[in-house]
């Protein structure tokens, strides 16, 4: 049986992609950002997922205003990087997993989530930047197949946080009813606080972001009750894309281990947030990344200790 073992939250700021593509990663400004993902790449190399489901949004690349699907599942065999105006990003073509994607589509639609099926699609920085941050910069091929799930967060209203969270649960049921043994990770991308449009552009709300990350770990149901108005008011008009993280969270256990967190301001116009959550019962095998691997002390104390080491790493990254 296939299984979702972990969730990753990550910003997908386009300037991060540009910094990678133009060899700027060693500049102090960008080093501050990239250093926060070193441990994550180690974690990912150790975790070795068989498939990644990447929840992201398209930015007027594959979808214009001609069609605006709320949830679009990529079922193709491959997804070429889109030309976003400067030529396609120099990253490998993203290979899909059509068999699992078709299974997910069938399962999730019968589970009452009316997905749009996409059999031909290019993918933009919304998908490829988080891939780089977690998988590095492979030359020829990404280490695992990817199932893109594009969410409309460009035109208001995006799906509600609650709807996203419930879709995550449906995705999990779909994955767990797939007969092949596959280790699946799920990405929620976008955010954190940012506004890039209008006279209020440049808005960042670190306090709100921190509370979002805290609740994502401990009390995601609380986040499902945040109205769209609050996202836009507190986290910026474009910060509303954080609802996508709730799809990732919904696909995990109620109780998870937060194995890593990173936060820094800014990357271009955006607060960068990143978190790795593992389903608790799986935690003992792969938790070494956060600098601890003790077993036994179950439940809260274990999580608290994990968080402590996470904060240490996070602060290191922001200097």
């Amino acid at each position, binding site marked *: 049986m296939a299984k979702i073992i972990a969730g990753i939250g990550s910003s997908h700021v386009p300037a991060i992609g540009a910094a990678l593509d133009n060899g700027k990663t060693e500049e102090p400004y960008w080093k501050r950002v990239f250093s926060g993902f070193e441990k994550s790449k180690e974690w990912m190399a150790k975790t070795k997922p068989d498939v990644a489901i990447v929840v992201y949004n398209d930015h*007027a690349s594959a979808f214009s*205003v001609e069609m605006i699907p709320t949830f679009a599942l990529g079922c193709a065999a491959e997804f070429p990087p889109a030309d976003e105006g400067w030529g396609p990003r120099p990253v490998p073509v993203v290979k899909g997993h059509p068999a699992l994607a078709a299974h997910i589509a069938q399962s999730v639609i019968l589970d009452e989530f009316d997905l749009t099926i996409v059999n031909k699609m290019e993918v933009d920085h919304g998908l490829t930047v988080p891939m780089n941050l977690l998988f590095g910069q492979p030359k020829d091929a990404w280490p695992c197949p990817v199932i893109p799930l594009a969410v409309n967060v460009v*035109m208001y209203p995006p799906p509600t946080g609650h709807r996203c969270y419930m879709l995550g649960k449906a995705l999990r049921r779909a994955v767990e009813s797939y007969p092949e043994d596959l280790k699946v990770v799920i990405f929620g991308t976008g955010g954190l606080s940012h506004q890039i449009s209008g*006279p209020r552009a440049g808005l*960042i709300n670190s306090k709100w972001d921190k509370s979002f990350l805290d609740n994502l770990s401990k009390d995601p149901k609380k986040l499902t009750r945040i109205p769209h108005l609050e996202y*836009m008011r507190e986290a910026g008009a474009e910060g509303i894309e954080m609802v996508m993280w709730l799809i990732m969270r919904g696909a995990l256990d109620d109780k998870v281990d937060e194995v890593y967190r990173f936060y*820094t301001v800014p990357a271009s116009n955006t*607060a960068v947030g990143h978190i790795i959550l593992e389903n608790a019962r799986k935690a003992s095998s792969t938790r070494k990344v956060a600098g601890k691997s003790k077993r036994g002390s179950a439940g809260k104390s274990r999580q608290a200790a994990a968080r402590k080491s996470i904060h240490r790493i996070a*602060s290191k990254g922001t200097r």
Partner: protein
Amino acid sequence: MARTQQDYDDIPGTFVFDAERSREGFGINMFCMSLMKDDNRKAFKANEAEYLKKFRLTPEQTEAVLKRDYNRMLELGGNIYFTAKLGATDGHSFQHLAAVMTGASQQDYAAMMLGGGRSVEGNRSRSGKDKSAAKAKAGAKSASKAASASKPKSKSKSKSKPKSKSSAKRK
């Protein structure tokens, strides 16, 4: 027809790209989308007004595009991810556009971002009737600490609050 008032119209300095603006701005956004192709960029640059005729914009929308009035484009149904393509066609970075929309120089805007970005304090609500502003006000009665929270920039600046955000997660 006048635009229907929405709860989010209370957010200052913000044009939410909703279904109504999406309908109204279809031409602007399709025009911007066309700029993904080099041939179209050249045709637009050769004769902007002529090129725009293909997209059936209103006179106000045409004027906003020709004048590169980015806020007006958003107000009339343009979406930032689309209008950014016009900025790129002009050879501008995104941060340049952001600065233009905020009325700041690019240098000042970049400095603001490095300093932790624009504070949400004083930027939540036009009417001051939003819940969090009300909460901050209620808190102000008992604790002077919260007072600066409900006041606009000038005051929080004196407390150097926005600046401390650059090291967001130090503790």
